[in-house]
């Protein structure tokens, strides 16, 4: 478009937008001014902080694996098959996204608790989910898998119907089509979905804190660590862990951006 003088209307909008951007930027920068590099290193050398990083990585990576194993079939069926009740199952996937994580955590607590349906059954074999890393994994899986499913579903649905029909008319079985067409064409969506799931699992607090409690060195994830430290007034420790967590998020965001920029354009 031809560049033109900004109208009053444009200036008004720019002003409002400017206030908002300043707010977001200020909040973000605040984290990095609150703690010096020396303090940061000092905090990181504490065994409790180190343990919480280990627990977070451990649980979230298991969650990523489980998400792929259970989530991919869901995305595949929802995007390519037609069957009765498909719309219902589709809404079911939205449920963990719409529910506040805290409420999801509460429901998990009841389900796996000593009096819960599954809690009772597992109790017979002496398996405890609540206040253990297994509980953390369940909570994170529940809360973050839908993001993976939605991303992959979208990326499979983006493959034009004719392309899949072409594969069938060329004599490809549904497994051959899956292996040689669906999988390579949705690869980027899968990777992006996994990155999102991982970030979400690492940063999850509401559901995790409900199910896991906070046994230092055992169920204290990074987010729980931040909360505990902040509540007990140890802001420096909280910020130090927060910065590490942001670091992980950014790495994952970076992968996501790269992967999505290289996706296929079907209408070339």
């Amino acid at each position, binding site marked *: 478009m031809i560049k033109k003088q900004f109208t009053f209307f444009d200036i008004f909008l720019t002003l409002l937008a400017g206030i908002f951007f300043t707010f977001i930027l200020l909040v973000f920068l605040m984290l990095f001014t609150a703690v010096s590099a020396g303090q940061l290193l000092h905090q990181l050398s504490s065994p409790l902080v180190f343990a919480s990083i280990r627990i977070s990585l451990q649980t979230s990576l298991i969650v990523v694996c489980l998400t792929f194993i259970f989530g991919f079939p869901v995305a595949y069926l929802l995007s390519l098959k037609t069957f009765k009740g498909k719309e219902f199952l589709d809404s079911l996937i939205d449920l963990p996204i719409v529910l506040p994580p805290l409420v999801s955590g509460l429901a998990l607590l009841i389900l796996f608790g000593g009096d819960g349906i599954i809690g009772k059954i597992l109790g017979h074999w002496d398996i405890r989910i609540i206040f253990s890393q297994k509980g953390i994994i369940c909570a994170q899986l529940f809360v973050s898998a839908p993001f993976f499913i939605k991303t992959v579903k979208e990326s499979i649905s983006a493959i034009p119907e*004719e*392309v899949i029909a072409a*594969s069938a008319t060329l*004599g490809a079985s549904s497994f051959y089509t899956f292996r*040689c067409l669906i999988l390579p064409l949705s690869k980027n969506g899968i990777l992006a979905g996994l990155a999102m799931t991982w970030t979400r699992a690492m940063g999850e607090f509401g559901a995790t804190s409900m199910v896991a409690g906070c046994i230092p060195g055992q169920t204290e994830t990074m987010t729980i660590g931040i909360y505990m430290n902040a509540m007990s007034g140890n802001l420096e420790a909280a910020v130090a862990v927060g910065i590490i967590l942001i670091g992980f998020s950014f790495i994952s965001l970076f992968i996501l951006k790269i992967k999505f920029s290289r996706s296929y354009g079907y209408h*070339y």
Partner: protein
Amino acid sequence: MGIIIKNIYKSFAKQAVLDNLSLTVKKGEFHVILGPSGEGKSTLLGVMAGLIQPDQGDVYIQQQRVNKLAPEKRKIGFVFQNHALFPHLTVYENTAYGLRARGVNGKKIKKIVAHYLELVKLQELHDRYPFQLSGGQKQRTAIARALAFEPDALLMDEPLSHLDVLEHERIRDELKRIQTATQVTICYVTHDHSEAAALADKISILHNGRIEQVEQPEDIFYHPKTSFVAEFVGANNIFTANLIDVNEGISRFRLNSSESIAKLEIEAKTYPVFTRNTEQKLCLHPEKIAISHTPNGKNSFLARIIDIIPQGAVFKVTGEISGLKLRAVVPKTSFKINSHTEKIWFTFPPDALHPLCGRSCRAAIPQRVCKNINFE
């Protein structure tokens, strides 16, 4: 024995798209299904390929009933309007896809793919990806891919509609050459009658969910049997007239008053279907009208020129004879334009006119009855 479609019904959202449609595509034939957009041409191809399940009716391929057969078991090649190439595979790999999926061994694949890439003249581009190809090259790849596994028939869904004018013509001629070379059975769908004329051995006109006329191109264009076909293929001078006299094989008609102010009379070769006192629709192809500065025998009328459009080697001339519009297509060589010319004589021989089936054909009478009327 090619593809046979018997009494197919298919509705979407309670709207009948294919309505008791039957069709035979013979082995080795280049069969074009011609019809307006959105009248179920693609649905028909989908039914043949097994991509769409008809509500009722049978599909036979090579004399085998395939109603329950999945598309991957049918041995039918399909070329889509948007080519539908696999974007992550090269031209070579796209072409080899059908062979690999069928587990053909590697050495044989190499030979077959090379053969078909040569046929569509893409040998040099074998390692390009679809996004690196022009529209025409993409469509060539799609054709090679659909031919490579040597299907019983090739279905093509308006494969040229997304190409620009130059590529359109080039690929069209290539396609005709490829069909002549391979003798593959082709069922080709289009809404463009000049495309149909250039390609077809046989043309079926699809309208309102059924086949309205099946014939060789010449017959479709110069002897359409219904008003719809006539309008659609451009034989668009249609008169409603009453028979007033028959004399030595020549019938005299008087045009209905709705057509022109003065009650014009025209002469036509007599057909068995002509009867007195019933309205008859007559069709006159624009190419059968001659134009001259002096009257020229029977059916010669002085017309006011409304419009002259140059089009390649011909002029499309529209003239008006006391309210009746006549459209003529005349070679440029036979007619000198002159901006001062206001009136000119339109002439057509009596045997240029032929009767149309009338309104009733499409609506109630099944297709067969209409076909059996003895026209000539």
